[in-house]
């Protein structure tokens, strides 16, 4: 039986301030007893005690630098503990830094073999898997070429295909769920699930909380090298999110525990709760939902929005974590998006077509006063850029058909979108981009209210935005901000981990018209509970 145990393990890195030491320096220092390049101690892990048994699916979360990846590498046997004891039963397979460690001169096929051997394959067993690995990577005839001609994305594909071709006992995974382009990502996720299902014991490090909630039953929260909390996935993730939102100064999400709630068990028989809001003047409406978070609920609870009887969209939410967004009367609501309603009636249906139970508590519909979205696109009035390395790219999916791309740098390259003459009030800010593989995972958008810096929001531009769609182009919500000066400035700088992409920025004023709330109590007596055959 596979098992991993850590007993009071600590790990301290000794890092030299000025990089590595030379023998000359070492001798001189010994002679004159004075160091100009002293050691700095970094306590990466402090007194971690942990036991993971066969059958466990453990997720590790925490802020950057909390020691998640270090812990994983220590579990894998790559870092030795400075103190404490590590004991492992079972063969470990690890998925981290997978894009590294290729032999550049060797072909894709050869690299498959090398990696395979390192993972414990023999020429006979790897030969049997070669074909399927090559097919999964979809690299075709590129596999005959030396891998030094591969793009970064191709390397990751190949690495992922090899790394996941094994049948692991203990599987350690670090942030590999976002691999390659969108189509490949879906395939990768499916493969990942399959592997996680097969392995006896899985430990997963990720910032992708919905995935983690779905894949793991236990979660460990690392904080500054220490175990802050360990327990059932839903509980720890909720606590972590509450902590992060508290830290960021955003409104704290409260569980919708005080609302009447109807639970729909996942099952073959179709069940749904439908909220309906009649007599709406044509216009734009934001739909919001609240639910009580529970760790045994669905991560893909489907809310379907109808304009009259016409389905407009299906939004899936993770009901294992609390809603994130506005708090109204102590209840947190999460936006399901903004919709144009023409028929005069808006309906929202939550069904049990999910992997686990869903909870129907409350829906809120907020009329928006500004039907025309305010958008400034790259290259248009209100858009300016600084720095000479900006490249314009024509992309079909971009707003206005083009984006501007600047390589990573020191922040001297800036793109600026300005909105003037705004009425004082609260505004929702959105940005769009077209994801590319070498884009920054932390593209910084700085928000200014006139001379006042409001916030810097770092966005992962390798993945697509999904918060709002205008003219078929996806926008990402950058938050809701008060604007007093009448001028809102959004600045994107290139001090990021990869290329930054400037497309359009969109703002919309938050209208404080009275919201219409429908709770589960509203729908139950009037028998709008819909039951249909599967």
């Amino acid at each position, binding site marked *: 039986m596979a098992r991993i145990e850590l007993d009071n393990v600590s790990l301290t890195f000794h890092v030299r301030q000025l990089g590595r030491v030379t023998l000359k320096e070492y001798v001189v220092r010994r002679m004159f007893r004075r160091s100009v390049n002293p050691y700095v101690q970094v306590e990466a892990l402090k007194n971690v005690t942990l036991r993971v048994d066969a059958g466990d699916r453990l997720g590790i979360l925490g802020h950057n630098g909390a020691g998640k990846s270090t812990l994983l590498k220590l579990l894998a046997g790559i870092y030795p503990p400075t103190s404490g004891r590590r004991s492992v039963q079972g063969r470990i397979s690890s998925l981290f830094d997978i894009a590294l460690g290729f032999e550049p001169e060797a072909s894709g096929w050869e690299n498959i073999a090398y990696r395979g051997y390192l993972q*414990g394959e023999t020429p006979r067993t790897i030969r049997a898997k070669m074909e399927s690995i090559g097919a999964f990577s979809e690299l075709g005839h590129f596999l005959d070429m030396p891998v030094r001609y591969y793009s970064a994305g191709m390397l990751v594909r190949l690495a992922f295909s090899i790394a996941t071709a094994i049948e692991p006992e203990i599987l350690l995974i670090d942030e590999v769920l976002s691999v390659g382009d969108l189509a490949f990502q879906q395939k990768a996720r499916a493969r990942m699930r399959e592997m996680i299902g097969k392995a006896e014991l899985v430990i997963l490090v990720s910032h992708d909380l919905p995935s983690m909630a779905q894949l793991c039953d236990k979660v460990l929260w690392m904080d500054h090298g220490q175990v802050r909390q360990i327990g059932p996935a839903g509980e720890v993730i909720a606590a972590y999110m509450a902590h992060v939102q508290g830290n960021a100064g955003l409104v704290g999400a409260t569980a919708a525990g005080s609302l009447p709630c109807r639970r729909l068990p996942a099952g073959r028989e179709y069940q749904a709760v439908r909220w309906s809001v009649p007599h709406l003047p044509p216009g734009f409406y934001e739909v919001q939902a609240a639910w009580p978070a529970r760790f045994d609920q669905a991560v893909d609870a489907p809310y379907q929005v109808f304009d009259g009887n016409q389905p407009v969209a299906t939004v899936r939410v993770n009901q294992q974590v609390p809603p994130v967004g506005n708090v109204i009367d102590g209840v947190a609501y999460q936006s399901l998006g903004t919709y144009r309603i023409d028929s005069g009636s808006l309906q929202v249906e939550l069904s049990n077509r999910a992997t686990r139970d869903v909870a129907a508590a409350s829906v809120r519909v907020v009329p928006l006063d500004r039907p025309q979205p305010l958008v400034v696109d790259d290259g248009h009035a209100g858009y300016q850029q600084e720095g000479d390395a900006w490249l314009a790219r024509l992309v079909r999916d971009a707003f206005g058909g083009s984006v501007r791309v600047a390589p990573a740098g020191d922040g001297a390259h800036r793109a600026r979108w300005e909105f003037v003459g705004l009425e004082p009030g609260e505004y929702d800010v959105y940005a769009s981009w077209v994801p590319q593989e070498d884009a920054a995972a932390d593209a910084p958008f700085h928000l200014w209210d006139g001379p006042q810096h409001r916030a810097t929001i770092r966005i992962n531009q390798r993945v697509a935005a999904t918060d709002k769609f205008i003219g078929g182009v996806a926008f990402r919500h950058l938050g809701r901000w008060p604007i007093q000066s009448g001028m809102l400035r959004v600045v994107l700088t290139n001090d990021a981990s990869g290329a930054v992409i400037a497309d359009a920025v969109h703002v919309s004023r938050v209208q404080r018209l009275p919201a219409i709330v429908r709770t589960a109590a509203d729908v139950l007596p009037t028998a709008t509970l819909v039951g249909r055959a599967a």
Partner: protein
Amino acid sequence: MVSYLAAIWQCRYFWLSLVQMDLRTRYRRSVLGVGWSLLQPAAMTVILCAVFYHLLKIDLYYFAPYLIAGLACWNYILTVTLHGCQCFHRAETYIRQYPAPLAIYPLRTALGATFHFLIALGLAIAVALAVGVAAKFRASADNRPAAAAQESAVLEVGAAASTHARLVDHPLAALYLLPAILLLAILAWSLALLAGFANSYFQDTQHLIEVGFQLVFYATPIIWPEDRLRSTAWVLQWNPVYHLVRLVRDPILHGAAPPLGTCLIGALTVALAASAASLVLARYQNRLIFRL
């Protein structure tokens, strides 16, 4: 120790295929292929033979195989040490992902170099045989005893060298090379490992090694004839590299086993290097990851 070697054996397919790939990439882009690795010692031999023949009127029948065998040995030891400096850095990405035994990375370096060494050794044997046959042929053509023929050809080189037996007379003596090659291979692995660790801890190791080896090179009779150093022979007696070179050179040159003392000192040197490597490995292998 045994379990460590077993772990190395377990991932044999990995390091063997890396060695294979190293060799292939090295030769893939050249028309001459394996010939390239022969070109350098061969050219060096031709040049040095020409120089020494004109300066010292040396016996080429003796000196050419002497030089080739010596250079083969020397290049082997030098290459594994210098390439060994980089062995862990080259493998950094593997080390960061898989806790495989670290000794496989210097082994990769050592095996690659061993391949070139064997080729160079083959060349040395071929030259020794060719020279032997040529000397015999010339002796019979002159209708004089072989020893006398050689004596006339020798102007400066001492009598011991001129009347020596040759590999062509005792071809089975080539078997003495097998234990010598084994010893040198163990030495190569140990040196690559030590150099790798040293370079990971002190990044100027490679320069120091280059300087140090320059000294050893001139303190060892590789390009200069051994019998020129009669007055300072003690330098040779205390130079382990000299004995290691003789382990290979004696069978090729004289068709005879090296003297017992040379064998013992050679074996002792290899044993010392191997123990040092094992100690360093046992003590530092867990901590290397922090130095990469």
